[in-house]
C-alpha cells in the first residue's frame, strides 16, 4: 500500500489563506479530483529526466508566464512536480503540467534573485520514482511584457494566411495585430513583414505590405497610414527597418533579394541579395533619401545606437565578377563567398547627416559573415549573428549569437588579452544551440534579456527563445517561449519570425490596420537626392 505524505501544510499557506482556501479544497474534492500530494515512498530514478520544453537550469524573468512542460515518460500513469517549497502541480499520464498562473506569479515574486529547485515524481507500474531535481533561477529583472512576431510557414515562395501577433509574456494571451486573410483571394493576397517599433514603445510602429495593397503602414498612436518609397534611384522599397530612438526617422535597407533552393545541400534554402543600399525615411514629412548608395558594396540591416548617435549596419563587398551585367544565377553560385562585416557611422541629428563609416566587426577577415546588428540599451554591447557566409542566417546551421564589447575600457585586462576574444568578440555559448540556426534577436528595454528565433526545436520551424544576459555580460541558457499546452509548438506548422519586445501593447486597433491596408492607397514618399 502506497503511503503519501500529506503536504497540505506545505502547499497551502500560499494558496489557502483563511477560510476561502478551505472552501476551494472542498470544491476541489467534491468535483471528484484527487488532491495532489508528494509521494512519501519512492525510489530514485536511474534514467534522466526528459521534459519538453527543456526548462532545466534556465534563468527566467519574474514576470514570465508559467513554464508549463511535459514529462516525457511513457511508462508513468501520473506525475507530481514541486517548484520550490510552495507550489505543487500534478499531471496525468500525458505528463503535461498546467501551472496555475496566480500561484506561479507568487512563486516567482518570492524567488526573485534566487534559485528554485524543481523535483518531478513519476508513478510507474513498480511504484513512484523521483527524478534528479533541477534548478530554475529567477532573475531580479523583469522582461518587457509584450512580444510581437509574425507567424508564417517557414521560408519558400508562396504565402497565403499569415499575420503579426502580440503575445503577453506574463500569461498566454495572444492577440492579433494584423492578419492578411483567412480565405484566399487572388486579388487581395498580400504578405506582411518587418514589423518594427520605436524605442520599445508601440506609439510609433510600422510594417510592410507586399503584393496586393502594397506599401508600408506607419502607425502613430491609434492612427495609421500607408506610404511607398518608389523611385528610380531606389532599388526596390524600404525593407529592413530601424526607428531612430527619439526622432521621427526610420533607417531602411532597400534590397534586391531572391531565394534559391538547393538540390542537395542540407541548408535547403539560400536567401541572398543581389544589391542593397540604405535609406533614411522621415515619417512626419514622408520624405526619403539615400544614406548609402553604392554598386561596389551591399549595405543592409541598419540599426540605431540607443542614443541615436550612430547607425550600425552590415556591409559586403560585391564580388568583381558580379559588377555589371550578369546572369542572376551567377550571384547565387557565389552564395558562400558573400561575407558581411558590421560598420557604424556617426549621425548628426541637427543636420541629419552621417559621418565616415567605421569598421566594427571584421567578420570577412575571420572568413565569416554577420547579420542583424543590435545594440544593447546601455550602449555597451553589439549583438549580432555570425555565420559562415551570407546574411539570412536563420537558414544557416553555422549561425550563432555573438556580442562585441563596445566599451572595451570596461573589460577586465584578462578579457582584453584573451586569444578567444579578438576585438572583444565572443559567442553567447550558453544561449546558442549546438548546431542549429539562432538568429533574429532583440534586446529587452532593460538590456537583461535577449529574445531570438531558433530552429533548434525541430530543425525546421523557428521558435522564440529567451536568454538572460547578466550584468557581467554573460548569456545564460535559453528557454523556449512558454505555452499553456507544452505541445503547442509540436502541432504548430508556422514559424515565428522577427520577435520584437515592447513595453506596452499595440495601441492601434486591428480594424484601423485592416482599413489602412485594404482600403487606402500608399502615398509615395518624396525622394530627396
Amino acid at each position, binding site marked *: 500500500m502506497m503511503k503519501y505524505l500529506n503536504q497540505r501544510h506545505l502547499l497551502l499557506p500560499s494558496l489557502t489563506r483563511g477560510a476561502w482556501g478551505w472552501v476551494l479544497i472542498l470544491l476541489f474534492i467534491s468535483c471528484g479530483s484527487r488532491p495532489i500530494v508528494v509521494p512519501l515512498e519512492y525510489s530514485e530514478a536511474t534514467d534522466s529526466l526528459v521534459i519538453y520544453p527543456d526548462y532545466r537550469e534556465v534563468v527566467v524573468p519574474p514576470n514570465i508566464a508559467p513554464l508549463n512542460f511535459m514529462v516525457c515518460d511513457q511508462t508513468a500513469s501520473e506525475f507530481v512536480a514541486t517548484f520550490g517549497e510552495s507550489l505543487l502541480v500534478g499531471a496525468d499520464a500525458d505528463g503535461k503540467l498546467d501551472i496555475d498562473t496566480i500561484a506561479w506569479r507568487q512563486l516567482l515574486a518570492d524567488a526573485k534573485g534566487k534559485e528554485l529547485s524543481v523535483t518531478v515524481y513519476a508513478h510507474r507500474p513498480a511504484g513512484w520514482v523521483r527524478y534528479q531535481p533541477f534548478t530554475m533561477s529567477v532573475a531580479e529583472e523583469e522582461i518587457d511584457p509584450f512580444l510581437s512576431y509574425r507567424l*508564417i*510557414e*517557414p*521560408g*519558400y*515562395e*508562396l*504565402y*497565403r*494566411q*499569415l499575420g503579426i501577433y502580440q503575445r503577453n509574456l506574463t500569461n498566454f494571451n495572444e492577440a492579433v495585430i494584423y492578419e492578411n486573410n483567412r480565405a*484566399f*483571394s*487572388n486579388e487581395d*493576397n498580400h*504578405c506582411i*513583414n518587418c514589423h518594427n517599433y520605436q524605442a520599445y514603445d508601440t506609439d510609433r510602429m510600422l510594417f510592410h505590405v*507586399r*503584393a496586393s495593397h502594397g506599401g508600408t503602414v506607419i502607425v502613430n498612436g491609434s492612427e495609421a497610414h500607408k506610404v511607398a518609397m518608389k523611385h528610380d534611384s531606389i532599388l526596390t522599397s524600404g525593407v529592413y527597418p530601424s526607428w531612430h530612438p527619439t526622432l521621427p526617422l526610420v533607417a531602411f535597407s532597400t534590397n534586391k*533579394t*531572391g*531565394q*534559391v*533552393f*538547393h*538540390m*542537395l*545541400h*542540407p541548408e*535547403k534554402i*539560400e*536567401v541572398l541579395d543581389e544589391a542593397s543600399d540604405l535609406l533614411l525615411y522621415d515619417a512626419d514629412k514622408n520624405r526619403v533619401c539615400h544614406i548609402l548608395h553604392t554598386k561596389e558594396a551591399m549595405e543592409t540591416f541598419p540599426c540605431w545606437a540607443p542614443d541615436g548617435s550612430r547607425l550600425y549596419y552590415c556591409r559586403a563587398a560585391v564580388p568583381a565578377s558580379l559588377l555589371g551585367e550578369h546572369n*542572376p*544565377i551567377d550571384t*547565387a*553560385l557565389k552564395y558562400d563567398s558573400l561575407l558581411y562585416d558590421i560598420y557604424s557611422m556617426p549621425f548628426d541629428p541637427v543636420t541629419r547627416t552621417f559621418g565616415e563609416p567605421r569598421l566594427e566587426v571584421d567578420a570577412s577577415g575571420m572568413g565569416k559573415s554577420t547579420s542583424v546588428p543590435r545594440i544593447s540599451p546601455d550602449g555597451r554591447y553589439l549583438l549580432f549573428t555570425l555565420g559562415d557566409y551570407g546574411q*539570412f542566417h536563420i537558414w544557416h546551421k553555422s549561425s550563432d549569437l555573438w556580442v562585441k564589447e563596445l566599451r572595451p575600457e570596461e573589460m577586465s585586462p584578462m578579457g582584453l588579452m584573451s586569444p578567444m576574444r579578438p576585438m572583444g568578440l565572443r559567442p553567447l555559448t550558453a544561449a546558442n544551440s549546438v548546431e542549429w540556426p539562432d538568429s533574429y534577436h532583440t534586446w529587452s528595454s532593460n538590456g537583461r534579456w535577449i529574445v531570438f528565433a531558433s530552429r533548434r*526545436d*525541430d*530543425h*525546421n*520551424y523557428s521558435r522564440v527563445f529567451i536568454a538572460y544576459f547578466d550584468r557581467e555580460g554573460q548569456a545564460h541558457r535559453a528557454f523556449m517561449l512558454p505555452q499553456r499546452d507544452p*505541445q503547442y509548438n*509540436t*502541432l504548430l*506548422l508556422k514559424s515565428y519570425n522577427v520577435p520584437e519586445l515592447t513595453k506596452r501593447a499595440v495601441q492601434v486597433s486591428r480594424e484601423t490596420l485592416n482599413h489602412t491596408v485594404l482600403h487606402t492607397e500608399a502615398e509615395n514618399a518624396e525622394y530627396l537626392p
Partner: protein
Amino acid sequence: MRMQVQLMNEDWEGMVETAHANEALSYRPLAANYAIALVHTGHLTDALFDIRLDYDTLYTHSFDGTADIGTGLYLTDCDYHAGLFRTATHHAMEHLTMQGPTLFSLKHLTRLALLDYDWPLARKYLYILRQTFFEGAFVERYEPMVEHPELVEADPVFRQLRLTEPVADSFESQYQEPAFLGYAATLLAGRSREALMQSLMACLYSKRMPDFLMRCEPLVGAVPPRTIAEGLVTQVVKNPSILQAFPQLQMNVQVYQNFIRNNAEALKDRPANARRLFDEYKGYYPYYYFFGNLKATRKKDDKEHAGSNAGVN
C-alpha cells in the same frame, strides 16, 4: 483520383492498369503518376510511351478559381519519386502553405524528414498524424524508423529512390521547370544506372536529342533498352556514327525507315493525324517524337499559381 489513392498505397501495378484503362484521355497528372509507377515496376525504359502524352485541353480549377493544368497534383510526387528530395520538400511546403495542412503534404514531409535523418522533424509530423483518424498504419510503418537510419535504408521504396538522389549540389533555378524533368534531362553525374536511365527517358520525353545522345555514351558496347534504341534510331540520319557505336541498331533503322515512309503524308499535318496513328504505333518512340506531345511548348496551356512572390516573404 484513383491513381492518387493507388500511389498512396504504393500499388504500382494498379497505377499502370488505371493509366491504360484511361487511354482515351490524356492529361498530365495521369501521365506523371504513370511514370512514377514505371519507375517502381522497372519498366520506365520500355513502357513510358505506351499511353498518349498529348495532353488534351483539360484543366482543374485551383483554389483561387484560376484554371490549372494540375501541376500541384503531381509536382511533389514526381520530385519525390525522382529522388529530388529537397525539391520535393520545397513543393510539399508550398502545398502546405497554400492548401493548409493536408495528409498529402504531411505524409510527404514525414517521409522526407526520415530520408534526411531529421528525427525531431519526423517526430513532429508523426505526432500530428497520430492525432488524425485512420492514419495509424502510416504512423506504424514509419515511426520505428525514427533514430534508426538502417530501417530508413531498408525500406524498399526509399532504397529505390536513393538511387536517383543527386550526387552534387546545385540550385533548382539552374534547371528548366519542372525540376524532375529539367534536372534529369541535364544530369551530369548520377549514382546509379537508374539515374542514367531516368535522365535518358527525360531527354526523350522532352525531345532534347543532343542531350540524349551525349548521355548515351556510357551505353556504348551494351544493348540499350528498347525505347532508348528507338530514340537513337531517330538521330541516325543526322549522326551516322551512332551505328558505329551501336551496330545492333541496324534492324531498328529499317523499321524506322518504314515508319517514315508509311506516314509521309501524315507527317505533313501532325496534329491532325496524331490521334489516328496512336493505336497503331503505341509505345513506339519515333511516333512520339514526331506526333506526340505537340502542345508541350504552348504557353497558353501552362497556368501558374497565383500568390507567388519571387522574393523573400
